């Protein structure tokens, strides 16, 4: 049984198209601020290209640092989209409806942001084409398929393509509504984008089939993307703490953990920014909170296993890494903070029902998970490199430079800006999906009992 009152289609159109048709007053000032924020990142990237990677804090042997951490973080966030829309769609979870598009759009934008990181991170970014595209150019050699760094772009670009298709297919009915609500240039643009959608039975059938098909097809991609990203580390035989078979499932579930938390936070933001209290209801946040307890606990199991597997062999080099992580300042403090804010604090906050329905507490828990998951990647990447082998002579530590810090911070601005601009052009809550939900929710009185007015036959 769902909470809240029944909504009419007119109301749904009016409320959910508000972000597009009559944007709030704060919209442009916020866009300007975010643009300036992103420009800081662009400037920093320019400095990095102009002066060389010496401006970062990277050294030997810690050759991967903040930027790769951030790359993995954003790839992780991108897992929310498919988790929420494809898996829950196939599982027919009713409460997914308002969350799906925000999650999918977050997927696309965080993937795009993640892709900028390795590009900025290489020594000669202008040569990235040789690496990413399976084309031999004038050099007579193709990219080396043995390298996880070639698997990476193919997995990520596949994921980006399929997520974009996923969003587009779900958008078509809503674009048609927008077409009918606009005039002038906007009307013409929406007409083209809505691909001649009339809302007849045949079109709906195709739309539903395409949606279900893509949901099913995207699932293997979903699992493979973060597995492959984790193999960037898992395949590094020389870095003892990275070279572990547990990394693929560990990274995938960690990605779901941080991604779903991020979606909850984005939904709470949208709800208050655009006044969508009747669409993104507390029951939805509640349901996501319950899902997150399960995901977080699964993730915590893998975290413990990773440490246990690492220490089980009692090899000197592996023990050196763990000693650094658990015993040496500041890594030990970071480790405690990380375990606290990624598992113990948020799960404690998610357990009571009243807390799950308190938006402030939910926001706090979800932000804390994401800070923690960022730290997780950092604590895997840097100590692993700093204590790579038993030769103590080359042991080093790593301190990020201000350049890296600004670049990382600007990626958060970039994702927010892209999301905000998207909400200006397209509705961030799927209209047709909400209407479908309302339709399925209707009940009729038959004698003494109340039965659903509609039965879905799929």
């Amino acid at each position, binding site marked *: 049984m769902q909470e809240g009152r029944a909504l009419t289609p007119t109301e749904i159109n009016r409320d959910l198209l508000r972000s597009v048709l009559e944007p709030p007053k704060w919209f442009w000032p916020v866009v300007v601020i975010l643009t300036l924020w992103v420009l800081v990142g662009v400037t920093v990237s320019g400095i990095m290209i102009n002066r060389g*990677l010496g401006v970062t804090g990277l050294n030997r042997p810690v*050759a991967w640092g903040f930027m790769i951490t951030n790359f993995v973080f954003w790839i992780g966030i991108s897992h929310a989209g498919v988790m929420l829309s494809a898996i829950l769609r196939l599982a027919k979870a009713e409460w997914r409806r308002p969350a799906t598009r925000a999650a999918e759009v977050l997927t696309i934008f965080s993937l795009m942001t993640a892709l900028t990181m390795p590009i900025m*991170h*290489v020594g000669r970014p202008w040569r990235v084409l040789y690496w990413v595209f399976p084309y031999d150019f004038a050099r007579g050699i193709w990219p*080396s398929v043995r390298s996880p760094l070639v698997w990476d772009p193919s997995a990520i670009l596949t994921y980006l393509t399929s997520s974009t298709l996923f969003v587009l297919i779900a958008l078509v009915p809503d674009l048609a509504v927008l077409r009918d609500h606009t005039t002038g240039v906007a009307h013409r643009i929406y007409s083209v984008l809505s691909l001649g959608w009339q809302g007849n039975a045949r079109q709906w059938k195709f739309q539903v089939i395409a949606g279900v098909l893509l949901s099913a097809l995207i699932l293997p991609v979903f699992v493979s993307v973060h597995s492959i990203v984790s193999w960037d580390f898992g395949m590094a035989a*020389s870095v003892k703490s990275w070279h572990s078979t547990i990394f693929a499932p560990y990274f995938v579930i960690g990605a779901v953990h941080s991604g779903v938390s991020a979606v909850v936070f984005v939904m709470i933001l949208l709800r208050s920014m655009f006044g969508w209290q009747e669409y993104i209801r507390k029951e939805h946040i509640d349901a996501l909170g319950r899902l997150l307890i399960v995901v977080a606990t699964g993730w915590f199991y893998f975290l413990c296993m990773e440490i246990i597997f690492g220490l089980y062999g009692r090899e000197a080099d592996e023990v050196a890494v763990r000693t650094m992580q658990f015993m040496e300042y500041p890594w030990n403090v970071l480790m405690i903070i990380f375990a606290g804010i990624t598992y113990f604090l948020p799960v404690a906050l998610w357990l009571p029902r009243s807390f799950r329905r308190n938006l402030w507490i939910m926001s706090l828990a979800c932000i804390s998970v994401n800070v923690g998951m960022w730290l997780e990647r950092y604590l895997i990447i840097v100590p692993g490199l700093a204590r790579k*082998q038993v030769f103590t002579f080359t042991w080093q530590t790593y301190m990020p430079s201000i350049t890296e810090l600004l670049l990382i911070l600007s990626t958060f601005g970039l994702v927010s800006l892209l999301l905000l601009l998207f909400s200006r052009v397209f509705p961030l809550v799927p209209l047709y999906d909400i209407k479908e939900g309302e339709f399925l929710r209707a009940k009729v009185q038959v004698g003494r009992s109340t039965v659903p007015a509609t039965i879905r036959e799929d």
Partner: protein
Amino acid sequence: MATERIDHKWGMVIDVDRCTGCQACVVACQAENNVPMNTPDRFLERRAYEWIRIERYWEGEFPKVKARFIPILCQHCGNAPCEPVCPVYATYHNDQGLNVQVYNRCVGTRYCINNCPYQVRFFNWWEPQWPNTLQNQLNPDVTVRSRGIMEKCTFCIQRLRRAELALERQEGGRINDQNLAERNLAPACVAACPTSALMFGDQNDPNSKIRPYFEDANTHSERERKTRGYRLLEEMGTGANVIYLKKVEQYPLKQGESHG
């Protein structure tokens, strides 16, 4: 003039017992290979370039302290961990057993530096610079690496090529230990070592003085070896083309005795 190519497999043997830690090899390598200057701030950034470096370890407590030195350079692994991870084939194995770096292909992902267990790969974080007085010192046979790419020990491939050209193509002979030393065409570190701790040669040459060590190390497990040879991180299976000879303990420590 010989037309067919002679099959070489280069190898190095480093006698740790002879190493005095004088760093002559480091300086020779720096000069031969156009390695950028290691100024104090480069060291403080922890980005010094040392294609060959002397690692120094202290044993025991003061005043009974022993210094141990071990020169570490690219091991030219037969099964190199750095090679498969490069997405653009910037590092690969050539037919003479060398692990070579192609500077023009490198995009600078730095995956190879992560995956090198010996940490002998060096990334050019900055554009390399030399003081004006050293501008004419640069070796014309060696590329000056621009920023953003990886570099490492090449076993002085420019000297080996010159040796091949002079000794094999023009004179029709075969490179061996003697003529490499006579013509001063062995790698710079080997030529500079005052105690001959570094030995370089062709593993395929039956008369080479490094050959017995490789034969022993390739056929026997570490425990059954007749020589003092071992490879660094042998358990990783990198198949290094550099063999180290154990330090000889003249006065081996007894159980419970302190170092002295």
